[in-house]
């Protein structure tokens, strides 16, 4: 081997191994939250479930002159003097915003649990059990309706907890540690208002309690995140320990009210029984329609057929039924045949750009679902809007309550009409993405997106047109993917906008606008 060849091989190897593969993640680039408005009056904003901001008590804080408080100041100094690399990483991570980070944690858990159970040897499917969440099939199966509900409860609980917290902050008027002792350094931007109870700890406590109910197998993980989150407030010099402890306690108390509501909102029964599943089919046949049939093998029961009866936050069941869209084209009609042909055309004529759209908005099994996608979109914009934590929580609560109610309305329509997917009726229709295991009308993506774009356009009017065009693309992606008819996406979109406008109505009167 000659000398230069030997060296070129060696250099080639070094170049191969040393080139950096690290990925720059968008959410790791977020700057520390530094709100441009403090929202000191948020204690008067309208809560979702609380009867008043004082429904749950928050005890009198210890005096700043007490020995105990002084010890807690010393704790800050000692932690700051002994910062580890892990401490600094945690500080930087959580400084971007507490509501934001817990929303990301929730999206991650949704993606982790969003997988349909594997079949039993006899071709039936096991049902996840909340009392045994870590035995396969893991509880929950965080499918889109489950996810929409989870995002709504966590966001709304955080919002109500913060309304209470802002009330108590204004009531106790406890100065920040750095204002009590000017030798305390603040290592992140700290809002110049009151420190008791710690609003970040309130958010964390509420998120922890709500998510422990929704993802019962993740208690250890959530506890770890809770501890890290509140610890960074002490490291940052923003709060003393008693302020974060009071915050966690208040957040957990408020969340307990949401947990009780979630246990009785009928979602737990949404899976239905074999008798319910058979009746849906026989009712459709009795109406003279081709009923939906699972295209999975072995045939899987339809996803959460009774979810349309779940009690949402913006609409009651009567309203859901009153707002139900008219029936889709009858499976025997010429109009249906025409829509079916259009789906076949999209299946047989995919372009690279339409495939990109289908995959970008796919949000299928194993992902954070379409509501998760809209949370990601919202959060990336909110970061630039410099909201206070309470406004962050309020806006995400509006977004997620809208999508939760959109899921209820959409699932109500799906099982009222129980119509077949295009591939069921014409087996020449191949799909560009996974075929969801529930009826077609209306499109979930379209309903979620119409609702999300409507409320986000209200919260961030400068981007209203962008949100609407994103929603339009998300909606069309389902036709391009050959899994939905045009009526599914158009009616879904318009139903979503109607639900979104209910969230806008609430936004106009909650005291925050």
């Amino acid at each position, binding site marked *: *081997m000659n000398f230069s*060849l030997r060296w070129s*091989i060696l250099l*080639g*190897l070094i*170049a*191969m*191994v040393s*080139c950096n*593969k*690290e*990925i*720059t*993640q*968008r*959410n*790791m680039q977020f700057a520390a939250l530094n709100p441009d408005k403090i929202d000191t009056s948020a204690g008067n904003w309208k809560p979702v479930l609380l009867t008043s901001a004082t429904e749950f008590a928050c005890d009198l804080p210890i005096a700043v002159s007490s020995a105990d408080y002084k010890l807690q100041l010393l704790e800050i100094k000692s932690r700051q003097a002994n910062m580890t690399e892990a401490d600094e990483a945690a500080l930087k991570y959580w400084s971007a915003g507490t509501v934001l980070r817990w929303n*990301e944690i929730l*999206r*991650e858990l949704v*993606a*982790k649990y969003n*997988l*349909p*159970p*594997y079949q039993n040897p006899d071709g039936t499917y096991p049902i996840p059990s909340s009392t045994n969440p870590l035995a*396969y099939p893991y509880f929950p199966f965080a499918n889109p309706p489950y996810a929409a509900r989870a995002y709504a409860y966590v966001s709304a609980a955080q919002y109500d907890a913060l309304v209470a917290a802002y009330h108590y902050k204004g009531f106790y008027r406890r100065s920040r540690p750095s204002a009590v002792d000017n030798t305390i350094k603040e290592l992140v931007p700290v809002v110049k208002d009151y420190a008791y109870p710690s609003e970040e700890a309130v958010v964390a406590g509420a998120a922890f309690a709500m998510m422990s109910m929704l993802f019962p197998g993740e208690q250890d993980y959530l506890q770890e995140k809770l501890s890290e989150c509140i610890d960074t407030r002490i490291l940052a010099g923003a709060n003393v320990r008693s302020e974060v402890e009071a915050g966690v306690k208040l957040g957990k108390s408020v969340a307990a009210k949401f947990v009780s509501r979630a246990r009785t909102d009928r979602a737990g029964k949404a899976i239905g029984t074999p008798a319910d599943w058979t009746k849906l089919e026989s009712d459709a046949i009795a109406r003279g329609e081709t009923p939906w049939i699972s*295209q*999975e*093998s*072995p045939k899987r029961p339809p996803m959460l057929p009774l979810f349309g009866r779940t009690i949402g936050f913006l609409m009651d069941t009567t309203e859901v039924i009153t707002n139900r869209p008219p029936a889709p084209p009858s499976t025997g009609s010429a109009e249906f045949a025409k829509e079916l042909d259009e789906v076949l055309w999209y*299946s047989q004529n*995919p372009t*690279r750009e339409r*495939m*990109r759209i289908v*995959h*970008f908005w*796919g949000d299928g*099994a*194993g*992902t*954070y679902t379409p509501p998760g*996608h809209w949370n*990601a979109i919202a959060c990336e914009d909110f970061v630039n809007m410099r909201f206070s934590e309470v406004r962050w929580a309020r806006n995400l609560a509006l977004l997620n309550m809208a999508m939760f109610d959109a899921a209820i309305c959409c699932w109500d329509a799906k099982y009222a009409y129980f119509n077949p997917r295009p*591939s069921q009726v014409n087996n020449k*229709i*191949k*799909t*560009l993405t*996974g*075929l969801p295991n529930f009826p077609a009308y209306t499109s979930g993506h379209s309903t979620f997106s119409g609702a999300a774009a409507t409320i986000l356009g209200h919260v961030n009017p400068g981007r209203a047109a962008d949100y609407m065009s994103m929603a339009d693309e998300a909606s069309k992606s389902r036709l391009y993917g*050959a899994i939905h008819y045009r009526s599914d996406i158009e009616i879904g979109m318009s139903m979503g906008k109607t639900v979104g406008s209910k969230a806008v109505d609430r936004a106009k009167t909650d005291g925050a606008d």
Partner: protein
Amino acid sequence: MRKLAGFLTFSICVSLSAQTESDALFMAKRNLCGGFMYGNTSWNHYWEGTFYRNNANIGSFKSNSVMAMANYGIGNGLNVIASAAWVDNRVTAGTLIGQKGVQDLNLFLKKELWAKDIKGFNSSLVAVGGVSAPLTNYVADYLPISIGMRSKTASIRLLGDVQKEHWYGTASAMYTRRSNVTIDRNAYYTTEMVYSNQVAMPDVFSYNVRLGWRDGPDKYFEILADRINTLGGFDMRKNDMPFLSNNMDAFRLGINVKYPAPALKGLSVMATGMQTLSGRNMGKATTFMAGLVYQTEIKKGEKK
């Protein structure tokens, strides 16, 4: 929905390569060998992590490919090899649509480092450097049906060969560096959420061993065993779709044959059969390939 596009990418690099980048045979200076190979790969069971299963929503995975390849002798003991394939992947059950198109361009530079006759054993050492890149804008994030993985790669293979009369043995090991891949989504879950459209691909280590009989570069029969192993990557979750950066391993056994066609001097027939015996996040694939290659000498100054 399962994995094999990865498998295809690997197989194109590994098993199509009889008399190409993973053997010790060289085209003489100014000799050109070019040809086409048809390939068929199928499986109906796969490993989801380590769990061996079938999937009635996939049925069987079927891949057909046509690969064009050329091998040119730049000098004695120095060859350049190029190949590219058109691939058609589909599944026989469920609703998912198939994918087809032109996949990646593979280029290799192959150099004989050392050769010596030691007591009747003809021994040689060979180094092969390779690069590959996608030729078209195909969709990668649709495994197992996507036709490739879109990663740009750089590889280095070291190979040793010993021949005694007509019998020979070859062993080689290859390290493949894989670039990040850009996908159509801007967030995805592996074992955690990743908010990026970039996927970090684990590198690949593979080795193979061949034993056979040969008579010149155009007539041989060999059996081979190869092992492909991604260095890192994660397991598919139960009932999940496969993903580009999964941990993909496979152990395969196969045969390669090359024989001169009597019809025309310089024309040879090649055939390959490979069977996956064990794996991880891969299909238990059976592959057949057959093709024709034609070898000729490019005379200096012939063209002008």
